[in-house]
């Protein structure tokens, strides 16, 4: 215990003397939580649309107005020919081109079928699907309105009608921030906990002090605890800063128990620091530690479920999400912060992350050698 005291004193002195580290620790969460949620908005709006109006009729005009007034689309231009409109797609000025054929109005008046050609820039598949979906809805609606123009109201038979009422729980305004901010905070805590631990130990390797430590009677677990405890505390501080920013900037107040949140982050940090520790035992230079961290953290982030839904992944990919700690924490954050889930709801997550903590730290301790 006494030895640990000296180790901790040393680590804290070093941390508080490192102004770069402190700046990074406080500035990174602030900047990231301010900027990232602004950028990371996948809601699809502002789709640029161009029309090729070969009809120039009242109906084609009415159709164009209806599309533009829906709020999803922005007019990129009305071109006289398809070639002109296609150029707009090539130049990324337009996402969708709608070609209104000649005789659009006259054919509709004679109750003949009429074809509208829609061309979509589908490089971004999701945007293309959503955009053309919006457009199809508008066209159907337009269609129905025209039909109403022809059909006499008295001729209408009563139709069976299913009335659908939908409600959005926990997030009735569908705020994207509520969804993104807790997730980004998780990535942040992961980066701080994992990377700082790895870098710190590798630094001792590089400047040679670790060798001095290795010739002392200091126990392995003392040394490792001496490293883990300070960075565990730093991780909790960063998390706290993040929660405060989420509250001030985005008005996000956890619905569930804050104590439970801290309990989970405590366990999570141990797991993620074990990961950092493991990296440090495999690297000799800061660049190597950095390369390894980067390699794994990018996989963590991509598979975390923050950017794409885990449900839609194929089976093998779901297995990967099962063994990375980040996906569990993101889910728990959302459960506690947004839905107010309780302890018994997160027990499976807690068990999974605890196992990871034990495995990662155990592996790291086994792999950390005082001798060669």
């Amino acid at each position, binding site marked *: 215990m006494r030895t640990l005291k000296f180790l901790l004193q040393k680590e804290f002195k070093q941390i508080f003397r490192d102004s770069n580290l402190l700046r990074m620790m406080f500035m990174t969460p602030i900047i990231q939580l301010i900027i990232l949620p602004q950028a990371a908005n996948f809601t699809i709006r502002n789709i640029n649309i161009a029309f090729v109006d070969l009809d120039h009729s009242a109906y084609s005009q009415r159709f164009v107005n209806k599309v533009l007034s829906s709020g999803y689309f922005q007019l990129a231009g009305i071109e006289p020919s398809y070639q002109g409109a296609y150029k707009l797609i090539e130049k990324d000025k337009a996402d969708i081109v709608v070609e209104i054929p000649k005789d659009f109005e006259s054919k509709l008046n004679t109750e003949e079928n009429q074809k509208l050609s829609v061309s979509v820039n589908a490089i971004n598949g999701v945007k293309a699907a959503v955009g053309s979906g919006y457009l199809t809805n508008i066209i159907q609606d337009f269609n129905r309105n025209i039909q109403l123009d022809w059909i006499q109201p008295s001729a209408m038979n009563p139709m069976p009608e*299913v009335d659908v*009422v939908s409600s959005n729980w926990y997030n009735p305004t569908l705020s994207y921030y509520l969804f993104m901010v807790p997730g980004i905070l998780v990535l942040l805590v992961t980066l701080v906990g994992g990377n700082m631990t790895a870098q710190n130990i590798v630094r001792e390797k590089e400047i040679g002090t670790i060798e001095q430590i290795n010739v002392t009677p200091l126990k392995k677990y003392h040394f490792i605890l001496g490293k883990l405890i300070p960075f565990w505390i730093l991780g909790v501080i960063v998390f706290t800063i993040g929660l405060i920013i989420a509250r001030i900037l985005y008005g996000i107040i956890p619905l569930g128990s804050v104590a439970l949140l801290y309990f989970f982050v405590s366990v999570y940090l141990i797991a993620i620091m074990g990961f950092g520790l493991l990296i440090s035992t495999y690297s000799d230079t800061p660049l190597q530690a950095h390369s390894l961290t980067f390699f794994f953290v990018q996989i963590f982030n991509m598979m975390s479920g923050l950017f794409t839904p885990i449900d839609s992944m194929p089976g093998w990919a779901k297995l990967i999400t099962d063994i990375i700690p980040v996906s569990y924490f993101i889910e728990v954050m959302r459960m506690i912060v947004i839905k107010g889930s309780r302890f018994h709801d997160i027990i499976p997550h807690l068990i999974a992350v605890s196992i990871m903590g034990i495995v990662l730290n155990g592996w790291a301790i086994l792999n950390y050698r005082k001798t060669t």
Partner: protein
Amino acid sequence: MKEFLAFITKEFAHVFRDRKTLLMLFGVPIVQIILFGFALTNEIKDSNIVIVDNAKDIATQQIITKIASTDYFKIKGNLASADEIDKAFKSGDIKLAIVFPVNFYTDLLHTNKAQVQIIADASDPNTATTLTEYVKGIIADYQSQLSETMQTPEQIITNTRMLYNPDLKGAPNFVPGVIAMVMLLVCVMMTSISIVREKELGTMEVLLVSPFKPILVILAKAVPYLVVSLLNLTVILLLSVYLLDLPIKGNLLLLYSVSTLYIITSLALGLLVSTGAKTQQGAMTLSLVGMMLPTMMLSGYIYPIENMPWILRFISNAVPAKWYYIIVKAVMLKGLSFSFIWRETLILFGMTLVFLFLSMRNFKIRLE
């Protein structure tokens, strides 16, 4: 010239000796291509839902069967009452609940009106809206089946063509992005760290007092990374053509030429970073925080730029990757010629000059 070759050989040795760094250089793009290509999709499917069927009649059975037959949903069970929905949501697995009232079918038959309630877990707003829309679509479909006789024929038929990516895959969007990011990683981070390491170890001074011109020292550092980058580009292109079935529509020579320009831009940026950093750690932080994050966020390949507030849209213009991303999409996917991308190319060229000018100036200040 002979000395120069010897020098380049030394730099190659530095790069290829460190296997952990190589893992990052070649592992990152390969993993990203595979994950983006096969695992990640924005599409929403296989979502777990629950049903609260208070009616249990023929109509609700038909609707439930219809829902179960789609790819979108996995029915995870029936709840006895709507009170249990909250509990199901809170344990995390369930994304949506559908509630049928008692006497659903009889109401529908006799009053021509019946109500269905959809309750979504909106903690993920995108999934919530999408799933709600799916259910609405299925119910509307059921309804039109009921009133089939009433149906007037559709008068406007839409004929939609998906250009460049008919299957709406994710790959076309991110392959150019991965290329842009990896080049930056190799060129900015590795170059700056390698130059700063020589400074830190004091070997830079030895090189600078040698009869070798400083410009050659820098060039010798840049060549291996240029080669590694082109190698990386080739690996990514091969993967995307043969693994992801993503053909290269444009001129390959044009693609390689603009890529070389972008690599040079990144190398110049790396040089600039190296003049501003004193330690390897510093170079790493600067290139990661200063370069990687803006590139990932503001180049447009992960987050759509058009959704951002104007200030971020404005800043994104200063990110070289944004322009390169546009170029690669145009050449590789749309098969466009140089006349469509000259503006972006010119911007990259201008940026390169600015970076080189700034780093030369910083370099001189340092020597004085």
